[in-house]
């Protein structure tokens, strides 16, 4: 399931709903992304006041659904969930939540990591940080590209 929303979410309720009614599920893994309170700008650390997430309505849902479908093709998942917020958030606020349920833990762990790694490089979201040093668009990180690239099938030695 895909949810792109401005409002916050309840992790406990989302996790309970994910596995409700399916007793074949033996494992649920999840990842939660939060707004950090510090950001480096040109080598100096700055306090973050707010973070505003912009996205491309329509394409966002489409790309997230594709990423979720890919995870379900690669791993035997009983259920999966991606929640991504947009709008203006404060340090400590939840940004993103991914969760995967499966019979066994390895598929749940791996699929969960795949979802967040791919989402970071594929889903059309952009972060603007308002800091005590001004407003700065967050730059894409090479480490995120590398994290996503290790899930490319050609490089995948785990299966």
């Amino acid at each position: 399931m895909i949810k792109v929303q401005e409002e916050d979410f309840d992790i406990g309720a989302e996790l309970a709903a994910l596995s409700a009614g399916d007793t074949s599920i033996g494992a649920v893994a999840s990842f939660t992304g939060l707004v950090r309170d510090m950001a480096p700008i040109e080598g100096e650390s700055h306090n973050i006041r707010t973070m505003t997430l912009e996205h491309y309505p329509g394409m966002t849902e489409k790309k997230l659904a594709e990423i979720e479908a890919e995870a379900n093709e690669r791993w035997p998942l009983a259920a999966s969930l991606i929640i991504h917020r947009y709008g203006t958030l404060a340090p400590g606020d939840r940004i993103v939540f991914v969760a995967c349920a499966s019979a066994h833990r390895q598929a749940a762990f791996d699929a969960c990591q795949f979802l967040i790694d791919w989402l970071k490089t594929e889903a059309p979201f952009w972060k603007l940080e308002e800091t005590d040093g001004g407003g700065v668009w967050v730059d894409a990180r090479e480490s995120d590209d590398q994290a996503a690239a290790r899930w490319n099938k050609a490089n995948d030695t785990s299966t």
Partner: protein
Amino acid sequence: MKILYFAWMRQRTGLSHEEIDLPETVTTVDTLVDWLETRGDGYRDAFAKREVIRAAVNQEYVQFDHPVANEDEIAFFPPVTGG
């Protein structure tokens, strides 16, 4: 054609979206950008680092040699930073 701009592309062009009639000389994303750059400083500033900009035609990522047509929706934006 509908063109959308996001993040600092939106700030530099001063537009979140616009409707244009595609000139006959424009056949690809690259030639569209060439034409947009003739329309003002904001556009030239937005497209200055063309190699880092991502393009999507009808909500699919494309390379800049991808063809474009008047009925397409095209979006320009910096590398994505969600998650």
